[in-house]
């Protein structure tokens, strides 16, 4: 780094104590210090683009995204239940443009990690010094016989990427008669939004309870034997909707033949190893993996599905100067079964680490201390919500899960010997916080 830039950087730091932003003043911004291309405009990609510009306006940032409007997956289960307008989850890219991010609406078709270029469907090419990949997930429809992308777009929506399918599922639920069965099929983990299927079950039950469908059933056919926030979900299901034998919600674990292997779209029948379940609405969440663009590049080295990255910087372990964030990557303390959850908050946290480490790199400063946090709310009724929080640090080049700063909302108060119910105000507060969280994350990433 040139001395003049360093002085500019230090001046900016001094200014940062009064103003808030650690950016290089305009005089230096004129000279482009580095070019960063961000692929994917979800929570992760948008945050990376924004924070790069916030931290150093001398960095040229291009964001390539195929859609004009982003729809938040978090809280989209409330849309399915008919309790939230999908518009409250949607945001465009004007906020990022105001921050100087060049937003390109296009689809990335190829990445050349040697020439360091990105090619798009419309024939454009972008060179980069650093590439941030935040491609989200793509679905493996072949894993469930009888399922296809065409069916997911029409009669069997997964709605695991919020948007048109969310609304189809909403309509299917609204049209479901009393006594109908809503099937949710959960793929083997890890999958995007670990508590999502179980929150969806509660939201469907909530809809049925308030729309004269008290005899409806919500059947969760699960490929797994446990799930995120399980004691909290089971407690709420039981108290609010009835759970298990005779209740509205039923959960079938993987060990109990819960894994759906085949579906017949015509009769809406799900086939497990030994059984068959006919539903009025069938919501199969197909197994998924890192977005195609990352997978095609050979970055999905973890079980051929997820992209491995370096803990301090999120740089791919496979390709230099390519950083993979969001649902596509794998990280965290894998040995203790504390992987990074695939959540919006986590993706943003990773994006902020990438932004800070790239800014340090381009300014020849030592890499900053990486820290990763997650907060994820689940809303199971209008006045009942709960959350999980995660904290990870990097020590000796490895991710460390910080147990003290992690964990789910309390299931009970009192002692294990003498448990007492958690006062309802706690559950009510977390519903309110879920909404506050949504508005703030949307602004933090896109505004």
């Amino acid at each position, binding site marked *: 780094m040139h001395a003049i830039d360093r002085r500019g*950087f230090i001046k900016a730091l001094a200014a940062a104590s009064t103003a*808030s932003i650690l950016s290089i003043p305009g005089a230096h911004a004129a000279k482009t210090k580095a070019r960063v291309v961000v692929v994917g405009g979800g929570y992760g990609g948008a945050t990376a683009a924004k924070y790069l510009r916030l931290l150093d306006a001398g960095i040229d940032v291009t964001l390539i995204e195929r859609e004009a409007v982003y729809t938040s997956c978090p809280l989209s289960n409330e849309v399915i239940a008919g309790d939230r307008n999908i518009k409250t989850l949607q945001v465009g890219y004007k906020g990022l443009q105001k921050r100087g991010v060049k937003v390109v609406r296009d689809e990335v078709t190829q990445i050349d990690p040697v020439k360091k270029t990105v090619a798009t469907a419309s024939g454009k090419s972008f060179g980069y010094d650093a590439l941030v990949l935040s491609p989200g997930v793509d679905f493996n429809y072949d894993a469930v016989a009888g399922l296809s992308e065409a069916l997911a777009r029409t009669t069997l929506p997964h709605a695991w990427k919020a948007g048109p399918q969310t609304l189809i599922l909403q309509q299917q639920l609204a049209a479901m008669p009393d006594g109908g069965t809503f099937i949710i099929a959960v793929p083997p983990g890890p999958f995007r939004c670990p508590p999502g299927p179980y929150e969806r079950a509660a939201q469907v039950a909530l809809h049925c309870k308030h729309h004269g469908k008290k005899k409806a059933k919500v059947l969760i056919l699960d490929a797994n034997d446990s799930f995120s926030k399980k004691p909290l979900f089971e407690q709420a299901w039981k108290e609010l909707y009835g759970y298990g034998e005779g209740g509205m919600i039923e959960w079938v674990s993987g060990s109990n033949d819960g894994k759906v292997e085949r579906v017949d779209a015509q009769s809406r029948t799900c086939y497990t190893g030994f059984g068959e379940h006919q539903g009025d609405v069938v919501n199969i969440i197909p197994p998924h993996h890192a977005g195609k663009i990352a997978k095609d590049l050979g970055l999905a080295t973890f079980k051929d599905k997820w992209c491995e990255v370096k803990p301090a910087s999120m740089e791919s372990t496979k390709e230099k100067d390519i950083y993979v964030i969001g649902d596509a990557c794998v990280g965290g303390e894998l040995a203790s079964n504390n992987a990074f959850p695939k959540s919006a908050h986590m993706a943003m946290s990773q994006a902020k680490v990438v932004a800070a480490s790239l800014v340090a790199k381009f300014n020849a400063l030592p890499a900053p201390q990486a820290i990763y946090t997650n907060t994820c709310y689940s809303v199971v009724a209008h006045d009942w919500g709960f959350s999980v929080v995660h904290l990870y640090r990097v020590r000796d080049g490895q991710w460390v899960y910080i147990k003290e700063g992690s964990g789910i909302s309390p299931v009970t108060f009192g002692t294990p010997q003498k448990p007492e119910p958690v006062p309802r105000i*706690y559950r009510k507060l*977390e519903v309110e916080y879920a909404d*506050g969280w949504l*508005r703030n994350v949307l602004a933090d990433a896109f505004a």
Partner: protein
Amino acid sequence: MRKGVLAVALFWFSGAATAALDIEVLARTCNNCHGVSGVSVGQSMPSIGGLPREYLKTVMKQWKYDERGAATMNRIVKGFSDDEIDALAVYFSKKRWVPVPQGVGAKLLARGKGVISENCEDCHGLTGSDPDEDAPKINGQWAKYMQLELEKYRDDGFLMPHRKMKRTARKMNPADVPAAAHYYGAQRK
């Protein structure tokens, strides 16, 4: 000689820049819920930029050491060292307090003014912008958040530490709670 001094100065500055970047990285984990520079855009989440350092530090430490109840924050802060909590309190206290004045009907505002002059003004001031040392600024704070905080103080099952605040919140008429919250939420200065 001169060159040497410059090199040392650059080294020192570079160290300071690193520390500053570390704090930025730490503090920006708060932005997800509390907004960039601590200015929240979610009604249930408080703005924290520009709140007094002592208040921020005290509240975070009370959560960390289970002296104050919370639905979420008490879990989050337990992962932070006391030094990090101090650094975060300093960081956010140096931000500008940005009130987000919210519209409120004349009737509720008038009722709110009566409620706060009887219950809140002594410590929080007439507009909430010039409070006692241990109290937060609340002019233009989100009314929804303040209402939820008052509900915490009024609930038997919620551990809240401030005796005077607890006593006052509990003697308020239920309908006075939103009135007080909206009154302060509407204040610009």
